[in-house]
């Protein structure tokens, strides 16, 4: 306030101008983000969980937009209006703080952050882990019938086992539409991670651990399964196509698999939450 660049022109009310700029641009940008960008956000509507993530991503983006605008507009504003004239040696005002602004900032950011955490917690519990690996004993379990499917990760392929269909194991993942699926992800060697991107599911496969994730596909589709935890030389090649089909088509398919893989099913170990095949440690 004491430092006047040009004695003739009065200093504009920066606080009011900047606040107006920020509020107006936030009021414009935030609805745009919610209604224009929101619906097209990943991972799409492949499953209830994926649709939930789209909502979460939209909420987080909507909260992030004003914060982003606050700092970016501030930086632009400051670099236009708070410049040192070329070759100038002007000093700024010797202000060392403002307890009201500081208190307000602490309170507002804390409230924002706490509400974010509360929102995340509610969403996580309400959606039974929101498609993420929730350990061997998930805190919340969806009601109603569930189709258990075991995902066995190994270096470097996923195979899938259907315990309710005679423990048949298959090379591809096929799921019935509109049914709650209980994925049991485990590994027989190193850490992998099962990621069905379009279904919004990700669960690490740890050796000796039964990691459960729930997913309910909402329409027929094909989706890509990828490994998302570095697991060795073919980590990048550990992908596979899966399909969501109608329940009737699923029944047909699984019976085909039972016939086709009858020789292999005979020699499989009995279905179990985890497996520790030989060699358990170092090979001889």
């Amino acid at each position: 306030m004491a430092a006047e660049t040009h004695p003739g022109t009065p200093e504009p009310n920066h606080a009011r101008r900047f606040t107006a700029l920020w509020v107006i641009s936030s009021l414009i940008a935030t609805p745009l983000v919610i209604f224009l960008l929101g619906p097209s956000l990943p991972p799409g509507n492949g499953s209830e969980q994926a649709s939930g993530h789209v909502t979460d991503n939209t909420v987080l983006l909507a909260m992030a937009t004003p914060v982003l605008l606050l700092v970016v507009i501030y930086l632009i504003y400051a670099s236009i209006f708070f410049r040192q004239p070329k070759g100038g040696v002007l000093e700024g005002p010797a202000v060392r703080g403002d307890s009201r602004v500081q208190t307000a900032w602490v309170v507002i950011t804390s409230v924002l952050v706490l509400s974010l955490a509360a929102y995340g917690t509610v969403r996580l519990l309400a959606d039974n882990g929101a498609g993420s690996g929730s350990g061997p004993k998930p805190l919340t379990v969806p009601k109603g019938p569930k189709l258990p499917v075991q995902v066995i990760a190994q270096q470097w392929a996923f195979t899938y086992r259907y315990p309710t269909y005679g423990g048949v194991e298959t090379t591809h993942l096929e799921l019935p539409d509109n049914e709650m699926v209980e994925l049991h992800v485990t590994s027989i060697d190193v850490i992998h991670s099962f990621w069905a991107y379009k279904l919004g599911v990700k669960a690490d496969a740890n050796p000796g651990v039964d990691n459960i994730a729930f997913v309910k596909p909402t329409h027929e589709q094909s989706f890509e399964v990828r490994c998302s935890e570095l697991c060795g030389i073919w980590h990048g090649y550990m992908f596979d196509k899966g399909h969501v089909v109608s329940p009737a088509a699923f029944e047909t398919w699984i019976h085909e698999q039972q016939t086709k893989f009858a020789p292999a099913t005979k020699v499989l170990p009995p279905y179990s939450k985890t497996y520790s095949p030989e060699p358990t440690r170092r090979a001889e």
Partner: protein
Amino acid sequence: MGGFPGCLWRHRLASSGEQVEWGAQLSTLAKKVLGVGSAVVVLGVLIGLYVASWATSQPNTIVASAAPPPSGGTQLTLETVAAIGPKYEPSHPDWVSYLVRKDNKWIHSTIYSVPANSVVHVTLYQYDGDSGLRNPFLSQVQGTVGETETVDGKTINSIPPEEASHTFVIPQLGVFVPLPGVPEEAKNQCEFAPCEGAAHRTITFSFRTGKKGRYRWQCFVPCAAGYIDGFGGPMQTLGYMDGFINVV
């Protein structure tokens, strides 16, 4: 860089007055720094070239030869050995490995090139003993012509999982072929590659290649002795138990 010399000259003029203070001492310093600096640059370039050649080094690509007339398609002749031997790899003589036959010579490579939309006939000489599969599911043959393989003339569609010595699997093409090992009691076990003449099993199968692409293939049997789960070393080094199928 065109504008630099003029620039350099101008700065010299501008700062010539100020340079006097540090002048004499600094110019020798500059010379030393320059000398060391150019040595570092030369060394750096050499190291960079070394690193680049290390990063890009891969086994040679072996083009599959045309199969004998009646069958058509292409022919790949492979063998698996328990130890590659000092002749091929002095640094890792004990590592288990695949080899490929080209012009009547066994070559240590796992990168093969085959034509798209064609049939590839594979003849595989299996010189290694059995280790057993970690996932017995892979003991069934999948994705070959007829969903079968022939072992020593016998056509089968699965093997006992504990007899598996290696597998030849191209997951993206759906090809899964388990390879039974040489029985332990067999005499004349092979020591080092190439194993011609030693006890072996002859396995043949054919598969169809699909679209063009670079597919990986690998072994699923925990055959790397000394490593956790039998999956380290040769199981994770290109050229031993892993490779590429280039469909061109």
